């Protein structure tokens, strides 16, 4: 199967994909973008969160074929080069990263939250990130990171 996707602003072609491959598999194994993570591959953990035409989705639940001709943004596409997006910087500064396996998904979910609501209350943060599992941090530092990112964006 041949696919054409627009990923992180670039046109990408995929040759020889099996029809059952998920968008997550194609990103990770065929396009060299392993930043979207594979913690459950059943849509429960949020670690593979990406934008598909601007909507936050679990890449594991989207067939690659469904993304044909569409626009995908992954954690690798939030910012160019060595720079950090302010949300990424906030996650590092707040100590929200331990093993880091949940981190790319949480950064995408935080990005999605803050563009909808730049000054979320704690309850809104918790609700927005409820689809992203983290096993290391107990979430406290993640909430700190979201607040820090929001404060810095508002400053």
């Amino acid at each position, binding site marked *: 199967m041949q696919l054409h996707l627009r990923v992180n602003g670039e046109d990408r072609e995929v040759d020889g994909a099996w029809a059952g491959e998920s968008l997550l598999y194609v990103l990770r194994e065929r396009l060299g973008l392993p930043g979207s993570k594979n913690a459950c591959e059943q849509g429960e953990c949020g670690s593979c969160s990406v934008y598909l035409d601007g909507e936050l989705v679990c890449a594991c639940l989207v067939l690659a074929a469904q993304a044909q001709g569409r626009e995908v943004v992954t954690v*690798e596409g939030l910012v160019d080069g060595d720079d950090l997006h302010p949300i990424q910087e906030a996650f590092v500064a707040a100590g929200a990263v331990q093993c880091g396996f949940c981190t790319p998904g949480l*950064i995408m979910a935080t990005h999605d939250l803050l563009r909808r609501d730049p000054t979320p209350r704690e309850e809104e943060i918790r609700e927005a990130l409820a689809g992203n599992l983290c096993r290391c941090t107990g979430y*406290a530092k*993640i909430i700190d990171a979201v607040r820090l990112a929001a404060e810095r964006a508002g400053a």
Partner: protein
Amino acid sequence: MTTTRAPDTPTRDRIAGGIGESARRPDGVSKVKGQFAYSSDLWAEDMLWGATVRSPHPRARIRGIDITRALQVPGVHAVLTHEDVPGRKTYGLEIPDQPVLAWSDVRYQGEPIVIVAADHPETARRAAERVEIDFEVLPPVTDAEAALEEGAPRLHPSGNLIRSVRIRRGDEDATADVVVRGDYEVGMQDQAFLGPESGLAVPDGEGGVDLYISTQWLHVDRDQLAASLGLTPEKVRLTLSGVGGAFGAREDLSIQIHCCMLALATGRPVKMMYTREESFFGHVHRHPARLSYEHGAARNGKLVYVRARIVLDGGAYASSSTAVVSNAACFSCGPYEVPNVSVDAHVVYTDNPPCGAMRGFGAVQSCFAYESQMDLLAAELGVDPVELRVRNAMGEGSTLPTGQSVRGPAPVAELLRAVHDMPLPSASRDGGDLRLLPGGVSNTTHGEGVRRGVGYAVGFKNICYSEGFDDYSTARVRLSIAAGEPIVEVHCAASEVGQGVTTIQMQIARTELGIERVVVLPADTGVGSAGSSSASRQTWMTGGAVMRACRAAREQLLTRALERLGGDPGDLRLEDGRVVSDARGPVADVADLIGDDVIDETREYHHRATFPLDPDTGQADAHVAFAFAAHRAVVDVDAALGLVRVVEIATAQDVGKALNPQAVEGQIEGGIAQGLGLAVMEEIQVVDGRIRNPSFTDYLIPTILDMPPVNMRVLELGDPESPYGVKGVGEPPTISSTPAVVAALRAATGRPLRRVPVRPDDIVALEEVGS
């Protein structure tokens, strides 16, 4: 966090990012950018994918294996069975009782039997489905007590008992004014790390193999691999790849031998990666436990005796069961002074999933029982539960049931008072925001029928390995000059599993050498063992090894400075890349002293010797040190529906010395989340030896909505024997948080709640309504 510190030891060299600061993790940037290479991200040219054929039955005899149809699938490159295991056909951390690939007896559902390599993961899975195995299905032994009975089927040649630990102290027949008894049960918890078991094996073309892997201990993996691959250890080289959490589940081997066998058989790189469902079958879990306790106390509340019988279900293979049962027994009475102790703890083979290490390691199961008993006793005596605990609290110099004296601070009463004195969260429910109520936005209550409860618990466990195990760590430190500036390279095999041991190595090197540029090289088997990232031991042990290697390098530097400049060796220190004399100020640049040379020092760190428990009495100086934490939980319960919201956890913990305060907080918050999970939601449900919920849809771990704010007080009382006074931090948060939450649920509901996780049915007592 608020902290209480021992007087600061004078530190030599204050430079940015040294010990005591919340230095940033060196892997933080690559992790937030999605560029950090986890073991599941690895890729090699011409790489094949492995898959595993597993037993669908918990107990069966294999009559035949037919791989013919699997081999016919286009794209398949190898299909291997037990006949293809080149060396020892079994492995295991303490007892090599687990087949690499089963040949005759299958002892749990999910046991590996055949492995496949193919050019696409889906091809490998489809080929695996075409392997035909002829089973004689047998009735599984699924109850640990039943496995111990006369006439039970013998599951291993050695019998069904893995180990019993017997502790006897004082008068076995002691009597007391007040007696409370209780039977408790702990369900099977999963570590549920997020990064699935995975790795990449690359054959070297000369009969050896390189494995890039997620693990907690590279060298013990290497030794088991070499034995089963029939290779010398030098032929099996391991490099740690990015690890997506561990929590004990990466102590045992998973894909390691299989992946290397496939790579050596095909001559091509092979990647293996479990799915989430397979992961539930691919690693050991926390031991389910049944615990029967009797506590006797005087009218004044002082404990007179504790009698306990503990049975842990070890499942199909031994894993680390012999050490887990030792902990369950050694810490069975809690951090209290108990003059008369009679404890028997057993760990047993069954046909249930194998159980082994998980954060808290045996201390978790006992703590739930003894803290439940302390609450029962407080109620019986009419004493405040915190006051009863304080009256019995152990302290420095107290004697454990094993006869060991507690060295260093044991601030049990102080920790309890600290959590007791923290302000309670407001009782108001914030204008009826549903998200703050049990049931959340399911809209099951607007506050009616919601009851609040408060509960307390305190716990402790050992730091480092026990019972005579010399779990040393090794570090190599290399000091050189690059672009005119000194640079320190630290090489150590310690597994960074997310906890931050890499950051700690950098911080120690900066402080010891007064040099800011520190690089921690990839962990691999090219340097000596660092021991396991387990038992809350790495900051102490690897921290100690890095400290020793740095001090050896510093000696060399200062010797050079003295040779050139003369003076008093006690007068010189390293500061910001210079040698500084107290009397004369800066006297030399490190860059000048080293020049084109390299200072290269390797050191081991060993903790003090410990000793095995006496088999009849359990008496021994068996442990290196102990760490303590206390928790207070506040819960809201919808008693009609059994729905729970944990409102807040307050905790106090002595960490000895916080080398990285932010990382310490992260360990405490994360550990509490796992303890909360065990209290109210996490259980692998095993029915007739079969796991019923192997997914994140059905095995629930706390989400950000389940986890309340943590109010924390960190004490830094300084261990007298450890490097910098550190203690382990990772496990204590997981130990007493569970019984604190359950105590709060009891306070809110009046239900006995003798089993964790507590289910809604337990709260509304459906079984009583039905009867």
